[in-house]
């Protein structure tokens, strides 16, 4: 309508058009030229209006979770959902301290004993322990990071604040002591009395932390002059994950035996240190907060489990299911919930991680529920392509873009998830969505390096079944050694004699090789899913597709 401003149109030209239309209805002007005084004033007004409306729109955007762009706005919005964005989270695991020759005295290994890797990543023990007389080793729980102690003095005022000016304060392991007495962390002072030794934490917009004490009515006030000790772990977040055993090699702290004699111990990690994660960024908070809020802090539905698991530090993707969702419903599972989780960088959780995670989940779950952790299976995919491009485009640049587009389809937790099949149509769409690509032919090969066997030279089980008959190729490095004959046997290539079998239904593969092996023995094959899912990789609830590599066998111009 000409006589109304359409506030949705923030465009300068629209504003000018609407203002002129309005002026014309009021007989204010008969005609307008860009050079007229009236037009100049109208445009000046539209320019100012456009500028003001732009900032109004920006402000409006900051009030909604979906559109907010500043981290400060996102944090403030999710506070209303009782969601506290995670700070850096430290990896956890176990350290084993050893002594070459056992001695006749106990050696104390106190909490916060510091060790480190060759690259300088620090870890501290998380409990007091003792290497007993006569023993050669002891294992103790540990956490990545270094202990930091801050000493301050209370001023006796209400609602005192104690700032920690570090953005690496570990998410959960912070202690607040007033006059040597440890206070308790609460999320609100609403149930605190004047004598409650409670404190709150506030993560600041710059990722530093402030400790809040009570006002003497809700929550006790630290008395004037009392010593405030804040102890926290300075975390390296995701950089602190140790993905292999034996990387923590140095004891930094001095250890004593019961006689006060300094003792030299060695240290190692017999398992991985996992679960370390960086502070949540805006997009993670935006995604996680509503999902976690929806759970009501209780684990009831499948979505609840997945939301809470994926919000747990270090977990990149998770799946959960019960008895009804087994391919054949398994009512002997009773109240058992099966969980499968994958950590950042495709790491598979170890025993200590699963133990800690279980403890956490039980605080939110129904009373009778039991958990069973299922080991995830990673299906390594090699999209194999023939590509035809429009004339004139750079083939090298197009190939790079295709590889990037395919990589984007295999981002764990985002574009590839546990229990979600990989559709060939998505891969084709990604390839043909690249500028300059005219058309393509795509095959999704599955790759697996074979384990050595006892009865056979190589023996393994291919997880992604059924296998397409005649599609299994056996390689020594990149050299083709044999293909399956379509009947469960092998047809050898020149230079090799291969015997053994392939079971297309169970995926069991057995190989005996006559001839020298130079590289990794592996197979590539395709999955037979029938007409409905032809060309796709159909996974089970515990399986996830990962990108092994992209193989472009041919790229050229359309004829």
């Amino acid at each position, binding site marked *: 309508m000409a006589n109304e401003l359409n506030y949705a149109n923030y465009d300068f030209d629209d504003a000018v058009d609407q203002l002129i239309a309005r002026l014309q209805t009021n007989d204010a002007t*008969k*005609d307008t030229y860009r050079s007229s005084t*009236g037009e100049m004033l109208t445009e*000046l007004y539209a320019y100012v209006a456009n500028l003001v409306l732009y900032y109004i729109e920006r402000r409006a955007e900051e009030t909604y979770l979906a559109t907010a762009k500043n981290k400060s706005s996102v944090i403030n919005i999710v506070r209303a959902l009782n969601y506290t964005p995670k700070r850096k989270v430290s990896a956890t695991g176990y350290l084993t301290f050893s002594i070459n020759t056992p001695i006749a005295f106990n050696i104390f290994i106190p909490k916060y004993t510091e060790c480190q890797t060759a690259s300088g990543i620090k870890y501290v023990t998380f409990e007091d322990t003792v290497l007993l007389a006569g023993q050669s080793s002891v294992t103790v729980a540990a956490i990545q990071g270094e202990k930091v102690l801050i000493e301050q003095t209370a001023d006796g005022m209400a609602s005192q604040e104690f700032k920690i000016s570090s953005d690496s304060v570990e998410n959960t392991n912070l202690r607040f002591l007033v006059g040597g007495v440890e206070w308790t962390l609460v999320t609100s002072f609403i149930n605190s009395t004047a004598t409650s030794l409670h404190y709150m934490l506030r993560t600041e917009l710059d990722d530093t932390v402030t400790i809040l004490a009570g006002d003497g009515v809700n929550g006790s006030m630290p008395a004037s002059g009392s010593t405030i000790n804040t102890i926290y772990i300075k975390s390296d977040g995701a950089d602190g994950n140790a993905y292999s055993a034996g990387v923590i090699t140095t004891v930094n702290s001095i250890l004593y035996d019961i006689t006060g004699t300094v003792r030299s111990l060695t240290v190692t990690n017999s398992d991985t240190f996992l679960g370390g994660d960086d502070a949540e960024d805006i997009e993670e908070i935006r995604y996680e907060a509503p999902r976690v809020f929806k759970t009501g802090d209780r684990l009831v539905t499948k979505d609840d489990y997945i939301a809470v698991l994926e919000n747990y530090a270090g977990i990149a993707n998770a799946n959960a299911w019960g008895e009804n969702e087994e391919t054949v419903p398994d009512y002997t599972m009773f109240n058992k919930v099966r969980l499968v989780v994958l950590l950042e960088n495709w790491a598979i959780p170890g025993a200590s991680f699963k133990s800690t995670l279980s403890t956490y989940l039980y605080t939110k779950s129904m009373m009778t529920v039991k958990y069973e952790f299922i080991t995830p299976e990673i299906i390594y995919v090699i999209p194999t392509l023939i590509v035809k491009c429009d004339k004139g485009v750079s083939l090298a640049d197009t190939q790079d873009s295709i590889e990037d587009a395919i990589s984007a389809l295999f981002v764990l937790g985002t574009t590839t998830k546990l229990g979600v099949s990989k559709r060939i149509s998505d891969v084709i769409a990604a390839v043909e969505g690249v500028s300059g690509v005219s058309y393509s032919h795509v095959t999704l090969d599955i790759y697996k390096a074979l384990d050595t066997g006892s009865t056979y030279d190589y023996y393994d089980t291919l997880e992604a079944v059924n296998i397409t008959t005649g599609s299994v190729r056996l390689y020594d490095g990149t050299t083709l050694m044999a293909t399956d004959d379509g009947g469960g046997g092998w047809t050898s290539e020149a230079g090799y004699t291969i015997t053994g079998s392939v079971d297309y239904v169970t995926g069991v593969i057995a190989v005996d090789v006559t001839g020298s092996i130079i590289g990794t023995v592996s197979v590539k094959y395709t999955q037979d899913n029938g007409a409905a899912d032809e060309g796709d990789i159909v996974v089970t609830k515990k399986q996830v597709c990962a990108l092994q590599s992209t193989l472009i066998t041919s790229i050229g111009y359309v004829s």
Partner: protein
Amino acid sequence: MAQIEVWSDIHQDFKKDAQGGLKKVINVDSVMTSIDNILRTKQGERVMLPSFATTLADLTFDPMSDNLMGNMAKEIKRSIEKWDDRVTVTGVQYFQDPDNNTVIIYLSFTIRGYSQTFNYKTGV
């Protein structure tokens, strides 16, 4: 007899009319206002329309010469005819006034729908 209002514009002095409203100029006066706006606006000055008006201001510190005068005349004709298609410039005369660092410009032009030639004088 009142003129038929074909074109109208706001009076540049922002005066009140007899009814207390903003005084308007119409028809030929409106065109004159338009020419005045084109010549008195420096190119780049107008918001969202930086190409509007003339580049005369760029010539401020050029030495006075016939060449400069010629360039000014061309620029005036080009810009007026570009920004106001009601006007066809038929002549540009200029007189140097070195004592006042000014060039007096006389324009003669026709206006679409009018048979006579109009004149306009300004100093730059």
